[in-house]
């Protein structure tokens, strides 16, 4: 088992696997729609100029998430 951290703490250039979504309701739906389920590989790509949001690669697409949302995704660093 690797380290478990919330996604917004993943530093750019590193990959991780989604382990748990703590978001509820509509936010959770949106995450699922993007293909963020348990086991999905995520890579943190690039911080925006102010450090938040961060762009992630998720299933071949680049998605920017604010730290509020990313902190509700627990990942295991690869």
């Amino acid at each position, binding site marked *: 088992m690797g380290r478990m951290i919330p996604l917004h703490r993943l530093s750019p250039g590193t990959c991780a696997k989604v382990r748990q*979504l703590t*978001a*509820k309701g*509509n*936010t*959770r*739906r*949106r*995450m*699922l*729609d*993007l*293909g963020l*389920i*348990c086991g*999905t590989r995520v890579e943190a*790509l*690039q*911080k*925006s*100029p*102010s*450090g*938040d*949001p961060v*762009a992630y690669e*998720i*299933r*071949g*697409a*680049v*998605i*920017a*998430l*604010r730290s*509020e*949302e990313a902190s509700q995704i627990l990942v295991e660093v690869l």
Partner: protein
Amino acid sequence: MPGERMARETYRIDLHEEDLVIALAGNPNTGKSTVFNALTGLNQHTGNWPGKTVTNAHGKFIHRHLSFILFDLPGTYSLFANSVDEEVARDFICSGKPKVTIVVTDATCLERNLNLVLQVMEITEHVVLCVNLLDEAKRKKIQVDLTALSKILGIPVIGTNARDGFGLEALKDAVYQLATGTLQTKPLRISYGEVVEKCIKLLEPGIQGMINDQINSRWAALRLLDGDRDIGDRQIPDTIAAVDQLLLKAHLDQDTLRDHIVTCIVNQAEEIAQKVLSCKKQNYNVMDRRIDSVLTSKVWGIPVMIALLGLVFWITIKGANYPSQALATGLFWLEEKLTQLFMFAGWPDWLHGVLVLGMYRTLAWVISVMLPPMAIFFPLFTLLEDLGYLPRIAFNLDNFFKKACAHGKQALTMCMGFGCNAAGVISCRIIDSPRERLIAIITNNFVPCNGRFPTLIALTTIFIAGGMGGTGQSLVASLIILATIVLGVVITLTVSRILSKTVLQGIPSSFSLELPPYRKPQIGRIIVRSLYDRTLFVLARAIIVAAPAGMITWAFANIYVGNLSVLQHGANLLDPFAHLLGLDGFILMAFILGLPANEIVLPILIMSYMSAGQMIELDSLQALRNLFVANGWTWLTAVCTMLFCLNHYPCGTTLLTIKKETQSTKWTLITFAVTTAVGIILCFVVAQSARLLGLV
């Protein structure tokens, strides 16, 4: 379901019996509108950023003597969620009963796209999969085995490159075959595991009774499990109770159940993608990452953004200068000829006044001031749009919007506002949260639309930077315009924050933004498209408003009450107040008369000044400067006019649009009040400070 009614209302059109309804669905930014345009010959807005199709277009095409009506649906990631867009798309496919649904997908991001394909296949059997952007996939060395994909999914799969028209015949053939029933599909069924399948089996018979085969019962059962329980509770309470028992035993509560369903779909999509995608090179988008690491970096992100914008303004101003002069010279030469014609024919003076001095002259100014900057600005902006730069702007600026408790996509709606604030207001539909959407609507006007942008350019060039001449002039002018836009952004953020803390309190809603791959734009097409679709369209609209406005203004300026014209009475009345704002009565009057369209403010002003005495020849921008100076303008007047131009009530069209979009007179009036108040306060502070400091 509010969305159902909405879909019906949105799509209320006259269908002929023989018309076959076809829906275009797909993830955002996969080329749906491009396919739509290619098939119907219409001109829906396309561009490389998610969310630009918010209005729903439909168009006709004929293939092998059958007539099809094609509906361009908003892009969605799934059909489960609650946003207005997704409801429209879902309800259209469910209840609109299209004969065939085309799902357009991005070949370079097939796995995620397949998600939606599988969901649509749950609803209807009549699905054609269009794998678009094959050229981009090829460039990235991604290969899609279309035959295998078709076999696995059990539906026709057509590869296309919609922008170049490749594959569209095959797509039409497939649609034709499905619509006429000459081709049967065998859609792949996803299995949701033992428990859920059992529940579906239990529910289906009851549901069939409820919905009379209006929609697919398996899909309805899934939806019922997923949340919309109340319908079932009322109609088939016993079955629901049994189902709940089953779920309870399997420890599936609402959230876990949804996770479970989505997980099944996503896993299925992943499995399929692995089978049909070859050469899945890990680093096919290194180039994009490299570009992003500059364009959105901590150090360069914002400076590059400002520099790019400045460059666009510089090219616009520099390039528009000469054609503007040439147009003015030409059009005023024609005015002289027209005047001669009137004199020669012996037509009455008032007719000459209304038609030539009123209408023609206003039109001449609208055209020579508006056309050149628009003809240059629009293609440049479309270029940035097609490259995929706009979402990067939103990405760079998001944190500012977050601090203002607003939505990051507000930056995208502001970009739309550059073209037209009414369009900007409509584009606010991409923001789901009603609170944040209202903020975006109210503040959209702080971005100068193409009606005000040329006015700003004209004032800057002829007045502020006027004395310099040469390269320096364009440079200074661009910097001033740039500063004006930045000011507009700062005002937007400030007002957004104030609204969030007062009438529209709340915390930022959830936010995710897709940054699409950069795509190679087609320069030739961009120029043609932006000239035809945007420049000429906007110009035509301006002309339609300007013609009567010119006549009315001329009449006001020439109908006398006592020894002053109506216009002058009005100006005198407004003058004391206008003076406080660093303006004069005529300027304020022009803004008031310019309510229908911002394009006509400057021409009205020019005419007011001219009819008030100084009848000089006005065939160059230098002459315009002289006219303003003769009427007492200083640099402060120019600055305050520009400030007021940037910050005042939205034009008539935009106000009507706000009313329609918010369904509320209250918010329309609030927008009117907020924008105007900002202008008044700013102008007042600037004018008074300048005077106090003795700067003028």
